[in-house]
């Protein structure tokens, strides 16, 4: 026993200077002191003062960590999304034996390599930022998540190994069993990447909904409880889907740029096809994203009503108006791209007359979503209006109206997809008319149901039912998406083509819709990062570990938007650099006369 104590004292003496920070009793120090008092195995969350936060003159600690975290997250999302995207494209190529898919997939995994380095560099910057400016917070989190942080670092080796073999072995592992081995490596790469993201999500969500600790922040020792905290799975789901959509949008922007720069017809056709495929994947992931958002928000409410109301009320209420503008931009640009893309098909003229109705409904739904509830007015305006709500527009500002609007927007986007899909086809099955009638009935009944639920439950029942009514609306939308896609797939199996698709026959302005999609996605991710973090208000770890720094206050929306804007511009510049590097690697300049001629 005495030997163990001596060893503990020796270990504390050796490691103590590394681990001890003023104001925090390290676990080792506690162990060494166990002879004098029965100290707990884990200390409570420290109670800090502003003096406990180191400062560097001229550097705003919070903005530094904010920028590093946001840039790291964007690149991480990109390097996680691209392998998912590449894996899907490679699998489609294998299934269809269309080499174009394989070449497209390779073109993108090449970009991942440089982006991967940026992710690691920015991750290091974030870790150093936390260590320098928020050492007590970092130590507290490390004391709880030491195992997962350790394995996280080790998993990077696995991730790097998978990525390098996947990339460098692309041309080696071709054909038959070798191709399957290569695809399996891609799957492994995605699996490791996803586990990495889930681990990092655990640390972030622990700060929002701490688990495995008591009210004073004393850790119970159950690391799984801390990882598997209340908001872990909702964030995992939301980020996974969002990553796919984000990856698709960035790839789409790349294809759009290449399309605009291309002069040869074949090149334009190739990049048009690439842009369409990327946009398809982005929109396929964008459609379920609002549902994942609902789930996350519902779980935030279930975890803490106070946090839920903070997210939807006060300052953050206006954030959701900005979010509405951005998501409206995403939906409008995605639909616009599809409508422009119908020009590739000779048979699209049959459906062109419906486009204006789709546009009207989507814009109408966007305007409802965009309408604020309580207006901030001057006294005279308030008097003229008769209250803080507009008589007719005010009711459109509440959540039930927005639920209905967003569901309609999703349904109309699905309809755009179906019209695009069938534009160049003529169904040959005997039950084509019946199939069409079923689809019309499905959309009509579904839309009627959504309107009834959002109006009746939204305006004539109490809050509990108003919130709960979002679930049947979501289910209705999902049923419409799944059922109509299945019917369409069966109906157009073996369908006749009107004429071969004219890839490249798309206006240049459609490509700008793809740029808008990528830029809006990036900016939106930054904005939502602000609210996710801002929900903790003046807490490092919500309700357990208070933020006592000079920056503990919630920044205004405008300030946050400016930080996000700055970060977006930096990120865009880095992404352009990454894409440029991937192009440079393929260029060759003949160094005529530079090298000494070697005798044969």
């Amino acid at each position, binding site marked *: 026993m005495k030997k163990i104590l001596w060893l503990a004292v020796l270990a504390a003496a050796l490691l103590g200077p590394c681990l001890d920070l003023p104001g925090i009793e390290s676990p080792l120090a506690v162990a060494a002191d166990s002879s004098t008092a029965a100290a707990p195995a884990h200390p409570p969350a420290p109670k800090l003062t502003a003096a406990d936060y180191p400062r560097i003159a001229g550097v705003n600690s919070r903005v530094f960590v904010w920028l590093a975290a946001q840039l790291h997250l964007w690149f991480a999302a990109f390097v996680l999304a691209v392998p998912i995207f590449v894996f899907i494209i490679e699998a489609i190529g294998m299934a269809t034996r269309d080499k174009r898919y394989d070449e497209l997939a390779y073109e993108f995994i090449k970009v991942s390599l440089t982006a991967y380095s940026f992710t690691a560099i920015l991750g290091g910057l974030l870790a150093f930022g936390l260590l320098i400016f928020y050492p007590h917070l970092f130590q507290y989190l490390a004391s709880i998540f030491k195992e997962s942080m350790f394995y996280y670092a080790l998993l990077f080796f696995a991730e790097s190994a998978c990525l390098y073999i996947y990339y460098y072995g692309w041309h080696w592992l071709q054909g038959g069993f070798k191709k399957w081995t290569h695809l399996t490596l891609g799957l492994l790469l995605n699996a490791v990447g996803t586990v990495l993201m889930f681990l990092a999500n655990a640390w972030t969500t622990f700060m929002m909904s701490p688990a495995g600790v008591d*009210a004073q922040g004393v850790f119970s020792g159950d690391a799984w409880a801390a990882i598997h905290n209340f908001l872990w799975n909702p964030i995992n789901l939301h980020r996974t889907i969002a990553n796919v959509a984000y990856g698709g949008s960035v790839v789409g922007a790349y294809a759009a*740029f290449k399309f*605009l*720069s291309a002069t040869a017809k074949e090149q334009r056709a190739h990049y048009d096809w690439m842009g369409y495929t990327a946009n398809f994947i982005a929109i396929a992931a964008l459609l379920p994203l609002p549902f994942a958002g609902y789930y996350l928000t519902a779980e935030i409410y*279930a975890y*803490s*009503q*106070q*946090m839920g*109301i*903070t997210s939807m*009320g*006060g*300052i953050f209420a*206006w954030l959701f*108006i*900005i979010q509405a*503008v*951005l998501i409206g931009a995403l939906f409008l640009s995605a639909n616009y791209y599809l409508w422009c893309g119908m020009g590739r098909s000779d048979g699209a003229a049959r459906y062109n007359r419906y486009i204006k109705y789709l546009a009207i409904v989507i814009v109408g739904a966007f305007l409802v979503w965009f309408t*604020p509830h309580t207006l*901030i007015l001057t*006294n005279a305006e308030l*008097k003229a209006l*008769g*209250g*803080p*709500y507009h008589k007719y527009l005010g009711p459109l500002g509440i959540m039930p109206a927005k639920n209905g609007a967003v569901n309609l927007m999703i349904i109309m986007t699905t309809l755009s997809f179906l019209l695009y899909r069938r534009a160049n086809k003529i169904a040959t099955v005997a039950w084509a008319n019946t199939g069409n009638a079923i689809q019309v009935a499905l959309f009509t009944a579904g839309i009627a149901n959504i309107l009834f639920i959002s109006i009746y439950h939204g305006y004539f029942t*109490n*809050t*509990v039912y108003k919130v*709960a009514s979002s679930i049947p609306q979501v289910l209705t939308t999902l049923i419409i998406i799944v059922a109509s896609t299945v019917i369409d797939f069966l109906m157009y199996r073996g369908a006749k083509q009107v004429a071969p698709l004219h890839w490249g026959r798309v206006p240049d302005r459609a490509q*700008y819709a793809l*740029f*808008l999609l990528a*830029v*809006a996605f990036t*900016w939106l991710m930054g*904005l939502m990062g602000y609210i996710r973090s801002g929900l903790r*208000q*003046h*807490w490092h770890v*919500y*309700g*357990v570990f208070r*933020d006592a720094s000079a920056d*503990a*206050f*919630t*920044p*205004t*929306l*405008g300030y*946050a*938007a*400016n930080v*996000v*804007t700055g970060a*977006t*511009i930096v990120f*865009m510049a880095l992404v352009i650099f990454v894409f440029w590097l991937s192009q440079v690697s393929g260029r060759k300049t003949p160094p005529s006369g530079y090298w000494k001629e070697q005798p044969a």
Partner: protein
Amino acid sequence: MKIFLKVIVFSLITIGFFAGFSNFGVPRIEPAPPPEEAELDLGAMTMDRFIALGGEIYNGKGTCTLCHNALGRAPLLDKTATVAAARLKDARYKGAAKNAEEYLYESLVKPSVFVTAGFGKAGTNDTESPMPDVSGGAIGLKEAELKAVVAYLQDLAGAEVTVSIPTGLGQTQTKEASAPAAAPRPPAKDAPTLLAQFTCTACHKVKGQGGVLGPDLSKIGATRDKNYLRRAILDPNAEITKGFVPTMPPNYGEQMYAKEVEMLVDYLAGLK
């Protein structure tokens, strides 16, 4: 290069629009600063001030009105103190309180001991409350603050305030401290002091400062006469301004001196 520049300019304009809309398209709201950890000075506190403190906590730090409002997320608490006796006899009650004061206190720290029908967590058949223990977590009310809220809720319901002001200094001091509570409150020396004593600005803006739960009073004198203002203080539910919900306590007429009511009416009528 020309295409590259066009794409860059397009992207910057898009980003600029998002940033511009966030800065100029939505109201600029300064979020409230983090709450200060202030020590309560209970030694010189009167019962009226203690009740008012409960009201401030109820509308502020306690974040009670986030849910307990007319929107129906949680039950209104204006009558809870008077129905407490019935709750204690209810078969669904699972607590250990013996009187209304203990019941109210228990509801704050163990909200699931009795859940009002229809307000429980989904799927729990009203056996579990979604409300947190307000003595812990992000709200973290202290013992004296909890008691102040109980006193406020008793007063709000028009019930007898049985809470004694805690001192933490022992029984003798508690008695001494509660003695002045029974003594009549000295009238406020002016209207701003009165507004502060009765925490009116928790809900109303006066001279641009205050909450938004009630109508802005900064220029109320320009649109309302003295009779209207007097009635609005003594019987606030007689007429509700459009767009607002009836949350103002109806018993100011019993709490303010007649002289104070007139002083306040004159003051508000002068705000133009």
